[in-house]
């Protein structure tokens, strides 16, 4: 049997992803403590540990057959992949936020200058959101700690994901609008879904697990 390649996202979705695949009956030995390993092979399974934002590219270009990936990354990248199962974990939300003490200053800024500056790690989602509400914005792409941007004045607002809102509160930011819910998804390469029966089988097992837990 040929290899079935599966990408897993590093970071906060990782542990739940491994647990879910184990529950689905996959041999995940070595995955819970990979050390510095980026590729782990168990029989016909080959796991790739990649950055969450890179998962859509690995899947859509056929580097792997399937993967677990947050909807946030999928929505930002907009690459063609099959979102087969909503796994339910890793829930978070895309929000627009601004400094608590800003009061109406962002609105005032927009009224006077006709545009807003928005900092985000997700420029595409941000652009689509502001297009949808018909507002002109300048987007500053930031790679991390987006909360700092309004604080030092390079943007009036931010678009970021939040699970509990704790980081926003700690940085004195309040939610202005909600854009999009996100959870972890089991995704497949469009060719592999059709050509490799193991991808659909795994999707069915994962779907059953999710329904059982619900």
């Amino acid at each position, binding site marked *: 049997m040929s290899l079935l390649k599966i990408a897993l996202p590093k970071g906060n979705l990782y542990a739940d992803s491994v647990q879910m695949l184990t529950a689905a009956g996959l041999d995940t030995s070595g995955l819970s403590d990979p050390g510095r390993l980026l590729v782990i092979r168990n029989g016909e399974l080959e796991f790739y540990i990649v950055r969450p934002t890179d998962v859509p590219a690995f899947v859509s270009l*056929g580097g792997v057959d399937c993967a677990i990936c947050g909807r946030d990354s999928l929505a930002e990248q907009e*690459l063609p992949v*099959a979102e*087969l199962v909503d796994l339910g974990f890793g829930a978070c939300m895309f929000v627009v936020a601004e400094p608590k003490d800003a009061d109406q200053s962002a609105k005032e800024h927009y009224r006077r200058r006709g545009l807003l500056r928005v900092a985000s790690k997700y420029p595409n989602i941000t652009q689509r959101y502001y297009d949808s509400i018909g507002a002109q914005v300048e987007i500053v792409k930031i790679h991390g700690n987006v909360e700092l941007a309004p604080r030092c004045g390079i943007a009036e607002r931010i678009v970021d994901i939040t699970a509990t809102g704790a980081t926003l509160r700690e940085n004195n930011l309040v939610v202005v609008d909600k854009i999009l819910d996100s959870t972890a998804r089991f995704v497949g390469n*469009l060719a592999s879904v*059709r050509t490799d029966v193991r991808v659909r089988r795994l999707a069915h097992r994962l779907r059953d697990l999710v329904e059982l837990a619900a």
Partner: protein
Amino acid sequence: MIPVTPRGFKDILPSEARWRESIVTAAQNCMSLWGYAPIETPTLEVGEVLEQGGELSPNLFRLFDVDNELLVLRPDVTLQVARMAASRLADNDLPLRLRYVQPVFREEKSLKAQARQFTQIGVESLGLAGAVADAEVVLLAIDTLAACGLQEFQIYVGTVGVLRLLLDRCLTTQAVDAQWQAAMLAACHQGSVAEIKRLTVAVGLDSKYARVFEELPDINGKGDAIVRCRQLVEPLGLSDGLDQLSATWEILAGVGAERWASIDFSVISAYDYYTGLVFEVYVPGLGVLLGSGGRYDRMMQRFGASAPAAGFALSLEAVMRALLHQGIAITMPETDQPNVVVAGSNAVEAFKQAASMRGKGKAVVIAEDQARAVRTARQKRHPG
């Protein structure tokens, strides 16, 4: 600075060009045996014409000419053939079987590893409808892929009929709008069951329709898949296209094409011009679409004519990737290594001798002197 081609475009050097030529020739010969005649279409189309045909893709290459006309580099050939058929052909010219090999151009964002030019090998069958015509297109695709040298490939066949009817039914009986319909079609196109589910829940879709949306992408197999699909949708009166698909499949199975074809209801083209049969071509172990096709009986109406039509297009570059993936040896014709005639002091005689050799079908190059002749003969390969 060393000059390079624009992103997503490339030069093709002799060894690759020869390989491409051999694949294209094999495909063309195969299509000719099925009675398909060659055509060529212009590289540029008037933007409005493509729009009229329903081409709204965001990745069109656009430019203005000196008359300030918005022109578009052809993103595919099918719309062009429909435009050509509507404007240049009379009804009694039909049916027509046409084939082409042409580059197409698609604008792509940077950093996505996508070519902006690739070559399509395709056919259009105009004025033919029904299961026989559908089966012809699928079988020709199988023959063409085999002629290209592929040892392993699979054509996944479906129909848009069921989903079209279901989407229309939802629009008339459920609390959904055209925007929801478009989002649902996009989700179905990618077989994104998670997204399909989200969309059904979001509008509180009637569970009997939600179930069809969710289960349809998972129905696949051989002839049995059509039966299962019918069981799912017939009670709702949504079995549009299944009779024809069933009849098509009977022909395919009857001639032994089951080895190369499967039924898969997750195959739904993103283009809304398809009206019945749809199919996609993949090879196992390679996450790349090799080509796709189907039936688009209403496309010519958009150009003021009316005739059923079907066809497919394969990507030459994807076929080459699949051949490499399958480790299929590339054999080049003998004429690659030309004979060498030395001109020396008598160039006229050398050209005459070369001409007579070429008359016997031998490839000949003329070298100025012995030293150059030796160097030419040593050149085992062209660069690239």
